[in-house]
């Protein structure tokens, strides 16, 4: 069996960013000890039913996991290593904000066992950072990047593109600087106005106008061009890495491998006794903690994933990757062949149009990936 990917969710933030629809919560005071204990308890519960498996990666996401006490991170890593057989090169990532306070704790996280950090830089422009509701400025971001590079063997950071009013030229300049600052991995997300966010409310009131489609497309093209020039081509829709530096943890999602999700609102896909289970924990932090304290875990949903659901999930994740989908692995994982999962007529139309290549693997081409949502709608049966 492929190694397990372990996701640990820290649900708290100092403030909610206007574009964010993640499961994050702002509290005056956080009972660090209580949530640390609950996370460790839920990890132990999940590990007990998964059995002693190989562990390929741990990912601390949020929320803002850099607000966790480094001791908690250390304890969770130690627990995981105890419950599972951690690979020697086990990738342990922690998401961090580049404020000076959080940057100050980076060494402690490294000491706790974190070997890869993902910084939420979002922009290298102060005006934009204020618009995005971030608590750091560009100077802090650059400093945090420099510091993180000293401390961690691996480093990634995020930028948000296709922001209202952004020009292609300005984006190219920002991206070039980012590529110069980058170590081996970058996530470049086109801004999406998600339901329930502050940005959505602003758009409704006419205070925010999304970037026009033509410019968004031009920015997408410029991104591909600039990153390829620096040997950082996309290995996934929004993720760029030097060869070998891809996020192993995220690859587990896109390759549709087993991942366990610990913490409020965390999702999982885990094989238990030959059945693939989709799991989800209670979203709200305190009720989740109560559940864990009462029953050892905060699971609210747990369903067996049917073969056709597995096939759709494997396709919608796998075609995001430049490497595509291995037909044998797909069949073994989903119980369906690609031929059974895809509409033959539409698949061939997509191949003829240059959106799909299908030989040893099934891949969306660059032209296909940029239209992946429509492409999936067409070819998935």
């Amino acid at each position: 069996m492929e190694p397990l990917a372990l996701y640990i969710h820290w649900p708290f933030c100092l403030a909610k960013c206007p574009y964010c629809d993640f499961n994050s919560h702002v509290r005056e005071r956080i009972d660090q000890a209580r949530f640390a204990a609950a996370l460790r308890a839920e990890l132990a519960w999940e590990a007990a039913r998964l059995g002693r498996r190989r562990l390929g990666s741990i990912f601390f996401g949020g929320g803002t996991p850099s607000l966790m006490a480094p001791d908690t991170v250390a304890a969770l890593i130690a627990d995981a290593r105890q419950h599972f057989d951690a690979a020697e090169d086990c990738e342990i990532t922690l998401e961090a904000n580049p404020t000076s306070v959080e940057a100050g704790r980076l060494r402690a996280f490294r000491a706790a066992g974190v070997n890869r950090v993902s910084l939420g830089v979002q922009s290298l422009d102060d005006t934009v950072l204020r618009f995005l509701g971030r608590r750091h400025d560009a100077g802090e971001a650059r400093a945090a990047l420099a510091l993180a590079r000293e401390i961690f063997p691996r480093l990634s950071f995020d930028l948000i593109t296709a922001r209202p009013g952004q020009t292609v030229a300005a984006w190219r300049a920002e991206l070039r600087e980012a590529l110069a600052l980058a170590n081996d991995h970058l996530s470049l997300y086109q801004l999406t106005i998600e339901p329930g966010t502050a940005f959505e409310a602003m758009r409704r009131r006419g205070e925010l106008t999304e970037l026009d489609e033509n410019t968004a497309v031009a920015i997408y093209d410029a991104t591909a061009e600039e990153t390829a020039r620096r040997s950082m081509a996309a290995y996934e829709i929004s993720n760029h890495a030097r060869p070998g530096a891809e996020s192993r943890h995220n690859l587990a999602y896109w390759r549709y491998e087993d991942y366990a999700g610990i913490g409020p609102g965390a999702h999982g896909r885990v094989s238990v006794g030959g059945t693939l289970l989709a799991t989800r924990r209670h979203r709200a932090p305190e009720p989740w903690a109560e559940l864990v304290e009462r029953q050892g875990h905060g699971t609210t949903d747990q369903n067996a994933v049917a073969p056709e659901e597995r096939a759709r999930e494997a396709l919608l994740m796998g075609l995001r990757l430049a490497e595509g989908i291995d037909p044998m692995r797909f069949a073994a994982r989903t119980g369906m062949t690609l031929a059974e999962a895809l509409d033959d007529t539409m698949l061939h139309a997509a191949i003829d149009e240059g959106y799909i290549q299908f030989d040893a693997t099934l891949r969306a081409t660059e032209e296909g990936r940029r239209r992946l949502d429509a492409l999936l709608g067409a070819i998935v049966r």
Partner: protein
Amino acid sequence: MTDTPIDRIRNFAIIAHIDHGKSTLADRLIQVTGGLSEREMTNQVLDSMELERERGITIKAQTVRLAWKARDGKDYVLNLMDTPGHVDFAYEVSRSLAACEGSLLVVDASQGVEAQTLANVYQAIEANHEIVPVLNKIDLPAAEPARVRQQIEDVIGLDASDAVEISAKTGINIEGVLEALVTRLPPPKGDAQAPLRALLVDSWYDPYLGVVILVRVKDGRLKRGMRLRMMSTGGVHMLEQVGVFTPKLVAVDDLGPGEMGYITAAIKTVADCSVGDTITDDRRPATEPLPGFKPSVPVVWCGLYPTDADDFEKLRESLGKLRLNDASFHYEAETSAALGFGFRCGFLGLLHLEIIQERLSREFDLDLIATAPSVVYRIHSTRGDVAELHNPADMPDPSQIDHIEEPWIRATILVPDEHLGAVLTLCNERRGQQADLTYVGNRAMAVYRLPLNEVVFDFYDRLKSVSRGYASFDYQMDGYAESDLVRISIMVNGDPVDALAFIAHRSQAEKRGRAICERLKELIPKQLFKIAIQAAIGGRVIARETIGALAKDVTAKCYGGDITRKRKLLEKQKEGKKRMRQFGKVEIPQSAFLAALKMDA
């Protein structure tokens, strides 16, 4: 109540352009003669249907019996016939006029004669009416009675020197109108001893009484308990109630020659009551029916489809209910590949179509889509037979067609001089043939022969816009003529879209085909694959548009926590495709076709 001697009866209609005050005058006449108490007077009593009220038009004929003691000291019965007020109902108007001996020609003293007035006054003249000109709104500062009087003489050729000057709104000189009716209109003629002949003027469905028939007795008497026979169909019904309108329904024992009133006879649907039919006594039938009867024939057809496919049965029921009260529209179920299940419906004209559509949405809460209206063509096949065609989908292969005839109209357009050029250009663009062009003061009156199919295609809208709303328009059917007509199919990625096919003159085909292609290009959202939209005559493409593939459509972030939601979105997307129409490898939402058709309206 009905023992009035025939020489004390006057039957009259009111002819007027919309807004020139017909209904207001009718209300005044009822008020002055005491037909209704003050409390019962609502504005425009006669236009009882909500829709009629809103549009200021009359769809059904109605009558009111007015009692008037004239200056000669004698009591008269004045029967006011309110006629349908639009050209679509020209035949119904002619039957209403046939029930009267005279007409009031009401003209707005500031606006003057309009095209609609003209068409109706000519019909009244044809019906041998004594016509009394009435100048209304005489109290308005803009009133020019002398000019309008002159206009009536110049345009219509009527002596207007004795025109009655009134203000229906303020009640000035209503008595003058009543006196003119008594002194200037001839009394009706009729033989009380002859077998019964009553003209069926109109009928409507009343939930309590069943079908109520509006009649004018020509000869003989209508008595309760008679067995009535409809002379056109031979249908026999037991007469249950005879009465008059005051305008309330008041039952009487009988109605003699010259009288107007209503009858009920346990008739379930107005389809059994053809306007213009002669009602006679089944035991002692008349030998000859009254002249002028014509069965009603739809001249304009279109498909009506529910926007929501689940409403199909509701639409069927609603059409059935409407037809209870309006036998002049026809419907039959049809299926369209693009629009699903619906009905092919026939109407007396464009207004009639619009009224039915509006009533369906208003009274039955249906959201409908109408395909482009089509006229009735006559297809002469190479085998020598003739078939009528009103659905482009039914057009036979050109190799089987010898020639096609299309219906023409004779249109009368009145327009201020400064807009005449634009109106003439429009008529010429629409293949019009000028029959007459005269001036009435500073207004031109253009009489044109036009193919009806050019008029059903947004002619009113264009006329209004090129004349800045000043042109008035009226028409009569004017026979069929051979024409070079073609069917234009609209294709999406090579597949024809049945609901968008239409028939047009060859000279207009390319322009219209291109217009539809351009419109669809705007309406169909970009998709994964590029989409070709073509208009074609047979195999020959006459217009083409291409919708390019969408440039980008991808979720930026998708990690472990997003999979379930994304999968469900994908499944929903698949489900949504059931409402799509597949054209090769592209799927077009039905809503795009609906919108394309809506823009025609």
